[in-house]
C-alpha cells in the first residue's frame, strides 16, 4: 500500500519509540508543573514555621519595639516584645485612602469604556492608557507620588502620598474589571431600566451596579490584595512611623514597611517572620475570597 514508505524504519520499533516519547513528555509536563508550584509550598511553610511563635495578642495591639528593647529581649532569649499595630493601622489608612480614590474613579472610567465600545478611537485610546498605567513599575509610581504629593502637597512624607501611588496602581485593575463586568450584564436589563424613563445615572446606580456587584467586588478585592503587599512605593512616600498615626499628612507605617525595617535591623530579625506571615496570609486570603466570588458569579 504505502510504496513510498517501504524501506523506511516505520515498523513496530518506530511506533513504540514515538509512544515512549509521548509518555515521557507527559510525565515531564507533570513533574515540571509540580516544580513550578513548589515555591509556594516552601515559602508558606517557612513563614509558618518561623513566624507562628511571635504571633500573639500583643502582635495586633502593640507598636513596634525599638531596637534596644529587641536587643535586650534577644539577649535574654525572650520573645521580642511589642507588635505591629502601627503597621496595621497604617496599612488600613493608606490602603483605605487609595481605595476611596481609585474605586469610584475606576468605576467611572470603566463605565465610560463600556458605553463607548463602539467608538473605537476614544475608548481604545483610554483603554491603552489604562493598560500602560498598569505596566508601570510600582517604584516609578512611588517617584511620581513623591514629586507630586511629598514635595508639593504635604511637604514631607505622608500617608496621602503613599495612597496616591497605590491608587494609581489600583486604578487600571478596577477599570478593566468594571468594563468586563458591565459587558457581561445582559443588554436587556439596561434597556428595561431606560425604557421605564429612568435617567441614565439612576439606571447605573440602581440596576447595573447592583447586578454586576460581584464582578465589581472581585475587581476591588483583587486590586486591594495587589497593593497590600507593596513596599517600594511606600518607601519613597510614607517612610514609616514607630507610632500609630491616623493623620494622612504625616509619615505613617505600613506592614510591608515594617517587614523591611525588621529585615534591616539585626536585632529585630525574628519579627520578620511573623509580620510577613501575617501579610502573606492576609493577601492570600483576600485573593482566595475574590476567586470564590468570581467562581460563584461564573456559575450563575
Amino acid at each position, binding site marked *: *500500500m*504505502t*510504496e*513510498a*514508505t517501504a524501506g*523506511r524504519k*516505520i515498523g513496530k520499533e*518506530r*511506533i*513504540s519509540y*514515538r*509512544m515512549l516519547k509521548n509518555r515521557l513528555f507527559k510525565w515531564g509536563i507533570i513533574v515540571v508543573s509540580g516544580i513550578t508550584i513548589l515555591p509556594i509550598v516552601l515559602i508558606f511553610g517557612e513563614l509558618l514555621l518561623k513566624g507562628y511563635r511571635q504571633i500573639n495578642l500583643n502582635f495586633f495591639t502593640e507598636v513596634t519595639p525599638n531596637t534596644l528593647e529587641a536587643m535586650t529581649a534577644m539577649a535574654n532569649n525572650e520573645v521580642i516584645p511589642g507588635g505591629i499595630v502601627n503597621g496595621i493601622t497604617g496599612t488600613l489608612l493608606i490602603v483605605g485612602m487609595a481605595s476611596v480614590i481609585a474605586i469610584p474613579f475606576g468605576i467611572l472610567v470603566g463605565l465610560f469604556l463600556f458605553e463607548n465600545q463602539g467608538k473605537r478611537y476614544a475608548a481604545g485610546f483610554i483603554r491603552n492608557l489604562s493598560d500602560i498605567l498598569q505596566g508601570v513599575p510600582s517604584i516609578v509610581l512611588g517617584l511620581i507620588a513623591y514629586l507630586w504629593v511629598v514635595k508639593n502637597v504635604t511637604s514631607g512624607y505622608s500617608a496621602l502620598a503613599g495612597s496616591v501611588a497605590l491608587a494609581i496602581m489600583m486604578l487600571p485593575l478596577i477599570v478593566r474589571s468594571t468594563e468586563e463586568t458591565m459587558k457581561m450584564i445582559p443588554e436587556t436589563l439596561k434597556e428595561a431600566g431606560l425604557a421605564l424613563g429612568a435617567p441614565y445615572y439612576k439606571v447605573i446606580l440602581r440596576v447595573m451596579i447592583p447586578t454586576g456587584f460581584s464582578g465589581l467586588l472581585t475587581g476591588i478585592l483583587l486590586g486591594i490584595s495587589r497593593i497590600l503587599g507593596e513596599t517600594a512605593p511606600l518607601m519613597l512616600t510614607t517612610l514609616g512611623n514607630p507610632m500609630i498615626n491616623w493623620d494622612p499628612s504625616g509619615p505613617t507605617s505600613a506592614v510591608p514597611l515594617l517587614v523591611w525595617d525588621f529585615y534591616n535591623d539585626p536585632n529585630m530579625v525574628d519579627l520578620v517572620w511573623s509580620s510577613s506571615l501575617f501579610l502573606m496570609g492576609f493577601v492570600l486570603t483576600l485573593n482566595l475570597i475574590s476567586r470564590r466570588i468570581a467562581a460563584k458569579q461564573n456559575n450563575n
Partner: protein
Amino acid sequence: MTMNPNIDSIDHPVLAIENLSIAYGKGETKAVKDVSAGIKKEAITAIMGPSGCGKSTLLRAINRMHELYADIVTEGQIFLNDINIMEMSTIQLRRKIGMVFQRPNPFPTMSIYDNVIAGYKLNGIGLKKNERDQIVEQSLRNVSLWDEVKDALYKKGTFLSGGQQQRLCIARSLAFQPEVILLDEPTSALDPIATSRVEDLLVELKEKYTIVLVTHNMTQAARISDYSMFMYLGDLVEYGSTKMMFTNPRDTKTEEYLTGKFG
C-alpha cells in the same frame, strides 16, 4: 454477525463490526447499541439517520477516535481485514483508515504542500524530496485539485474555497493510501456545487478505496452510496443495498425516515 432480518450480511467484508456498543460513561445510555455489520470493500457505504442516532459515534469508533474522550465505554469488536483493531496501535490503525471531517480543517500554519504530506510529517517519517513531491502530486490529482493549486503549493491553504479546502483534506487523508476512508458529513458545510464535486470525487475514489460516509442528507446517500445503514437512537435498524432500501425498505421505521416523517 447479527440474525436481524433487516440486515444483509456482506461476504469478506473489509471492516467487520460485531456487537458494538458505546456509552459516554459508565451507566449512561448507550449511544450505539449492539451494532453488527460488515462493510464491503471498494464500495461506498452510507450511514444515515436523524440527529443523535449514533452514526457519528459509530464512525469514530472505526478509527478509534472516540478514545480521545475519556469515560467512553465500549463493548464488542471491530475487525479490519480480520485483525481486531484493538490489537493494533492507534497509530498504525489510523494510517490504514483515514478520516475527513464535517468542517474542512486544513492546518492553517502549513502550506498546501505540507498539508498534503502532514501525515508523514506528524509520524516523523522521513522522505526524500522526490518521494514527497510524488505523493503530493498524486494525492492532489486524485482529488482533482492539482491543476487548481499546482502553482500555489507553497502558499497556506486559507485562500481556498470551502470545497477546495475539503478536497485538500481528502487529499491529506489519501496520502497514506489507506484502505478505508471515513467521512463525517463531509459536505454539510459546503455549497451545492462544491458538494456535487465532492460527491463525484467519492464515486471515483471508490474504485480503489473503501468509503464509509455519514450523512444527514438521505438524497446524498441515495445518489452515491452502494450500501446504506439506517440508524435510530443507537440501533442499526436496517442495512442493505441502497437501491433496495430506498425502493423497498424492510422496516417501518426506515420507511418513515425515508418518506420524511421525522428526522
